[in-house]
């Protein structure tokens, strides 16, 4: 199943989400229309209903089955919240809720002012999404992105936004709250792993092709050692993301999501640094594609809590469990 989905996603994004598509959407070139074309392609592929039950017209996949969708989205730096949309639609479809049109992202935080204004300081994909799922703790709610003031919350090329809804219309579209940060973290960990794998592939290719002092730099012992360390981190990140997705249901488990986001985020520094170090000046240019992935990796690391945030959550849980063996905690709280 996973291989079929992987190949189908690769083919789809290879066609409709080239590096230049990504650049255009990042820069806002072509406006909402550019995004709409890409979204339509994703929607027509049927992937957006991957987790929706077959009875409601979806594919009825488990989250575990859907892992390659998020991973391949990361491999192509897909600038739209496909996997977030898939999860929200999947969970909504378990109720009688009507499934909305368009892309859905998950807000990283929320605060509500006394006059009812809703603010989220960090909404990954907030600049390009149609809907934002905001977790109020006691419940979660879909808010329309068009009703919000948006400001880019990041550096060059970011599609993350600070968003602010004045008196949002809260009608329907309500879901259980409180776990959405972990869900967001889990989904983005697979995208992180995909982006890291792409940078590894680019780095391997560059090292074999680039000739310096008369031979490919891949022959240099120091390059070989660095790239091996990079590969170790990418392999670990990929496994961590799979741990996060390892459920036969639709919802990530809290500790598995925590491990997924902790470990993938921790890998970002090493993977990005080595990729840039091997690529030299070329990797530092806008026109070369590496930056699409390394920029995204740093942003996704920040989204939904960095490694230290999730480390603290895991550490507190481990202490609270009163276990005297870390291995038992790992076996019992987590997949494997």
């Amino acid at each position: 199943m996973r291989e079929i989905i992987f190949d189908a996603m690769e083919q789809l994004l290879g066609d409709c989400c080239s590096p230049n598509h990504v650049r255009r959407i990042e820069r806002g070139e072509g406006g909402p229309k550019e995004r709409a074309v890409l979204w339509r392609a994703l929607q027509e592929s049927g992937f957006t209903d991957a987790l929706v039950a077959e009875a409601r017209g979806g594919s009825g996949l488990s989250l575990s089955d859907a892992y390659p969708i998020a991973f391949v989205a990361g491999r192509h730096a897909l600038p739209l919240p496909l996997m977030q949309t898939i999860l929200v639609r999947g969970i909504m479809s378990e109720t009688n809720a009507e499934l909305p049109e368009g892309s859905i992202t998950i807000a990283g935080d929320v605060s509500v002012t006394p006059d009812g204004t809703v603010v989220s300081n960090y909404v990954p994909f907030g600049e390009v999404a149609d809907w934002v799922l905001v977790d109020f703790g006691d419940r979660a709610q879909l808010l329309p992105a068009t009703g919000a003031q948006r400001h880019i919350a990041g550096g060059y090329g970011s599609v993350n936004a600070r968003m602010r809804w004045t008196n949002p219309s809260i009608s329907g579209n309500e879901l259980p709250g409180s776990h959405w940060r972990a869900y967001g973290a889990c989904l983005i960990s697979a995208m992180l792993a995909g982006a890291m794998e792409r940078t590894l592939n680019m780095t391997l290719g560059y090292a074999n092709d680039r000739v310096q002092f008369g031979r490919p730099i891949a022959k240099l012992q120091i390059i070989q050692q660095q790239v091996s360390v990079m590969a170790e981190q990418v392999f670990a990140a990929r496994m961590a993301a799979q741990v996060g997705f390892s459920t036969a249901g639709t919802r990530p488990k809290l500790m598995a999501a925590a491990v997924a986001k902790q470990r993938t985020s921790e890998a970002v520094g090493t993977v990005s640094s080595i990729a840039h170090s091997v690529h030299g000046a070329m990797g530092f240019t806008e026109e070369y594609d590496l930056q699409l992935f390394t920029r995204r990796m740093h942003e996704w690391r920040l989204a939904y809590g960095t490694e230290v945030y999730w480390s603290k959550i895991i550490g507190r849980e481990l202490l609270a469990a009163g276990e005297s063996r870390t291995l038992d905690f790992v076996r019992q709280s987590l997949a494997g």
Partner: protein
Amino acid sequence: MIESLELTSIPAEDEALRASVRAFLDEALDGVPADVRARSWMGYDADFSRRLAAKGWLGLTLPKEYGGGGRSSFARFVVVEELLSAGAPVTAHWIADRQSGPLIHKYGSEVQKKFYLPRICRGEAFFCIGMSEPNSGSDLASVTTRAVRTDSGWKLNGRKIWTTNAYRSHYMIALVRTSGEPADRYKGLSQMIVDLSFQGVTVRPIHDITGDAHFCEVFFDDVMLGDDALIGAEGSGWEQVTAELAFERSGPERIYSTLVLLDEWLVFLGRDMPVDDGRVALLGRMASQLCVLRAMAISVTEKLARGESPVVEAALVKDLGTEFEQQMPLLIADSLGDDPDRPAPSVLLKTLAYVTQISPSFSLRGGTREILRGMIARGLGLR
């Protein structure tokens, strides 16, 4: 080439072994302090090894006809995971169980298999590995220990060094030159099983940085071996050693050898220390890393169970695991010194000191980190 590692889980019939191993260890290790248990796969207790054998937990993956368990590599994973994480003293049988047994099973004659394997499974034959020599370092192809044909077998002369447990093992499987010169490198090397009680064998234990003696120097002075000492084909020593190192590297040792320290620290934090964001984050980070390393080790085990030879994947997991194990005492030390007014208990300090001192050896055994990374680079297609 390297293959991706996919998440997999331990089959229920193998997981079922865990409860009995755990019960056995709870009793056998009751009251053994953490700084002793921290030795684990450096801890020697021949009696303990024989008790494990009596339970059927040595030679688990060898065929039943030779006294083995006839089980999969998952079964061995579960047993080994329990032994190492609890800090059981396993060094007496460790090399026989992990690599000499599988090596003999793969390359040995029927006579050799019938002789050695049941003894290994009963915990009666402990093995050591004769690879390094004083001037070889990581360059194993430069060995000069030589076995010369005689009428009845072989005459062995030379010297091995850094041989773990030679002074308390029964046999060594030695990489020796049977033809050619050192300049011929890989060609002309063979493996010999040497009975260490034979005349002409002298063993000098070497004390290490922790004050213990594991390493040995072994001298061969006209040691007369029978025809049956040769294991596998003459001249195939290099290929066999490579396979043997793959057995060595694919075990889960490389993620569990410092768990006794981690757990002792966990208990100290939970019992005696106030919650501090720095400490809690460090604890959680290690649990997270352990979780992912374990999932990777299980994935390698699954490839073994399918009969594959995941050499590069195992090297990758070993190198990551070594990083985890070598960083752990440094990180825990930093945390233990984060509030000198709440000093750590003595046993925790001793455990920390032992693990800190022993930790450089984690990257000596089974190939330095540079060698492993070179293997990974080749597996990645860097050329």
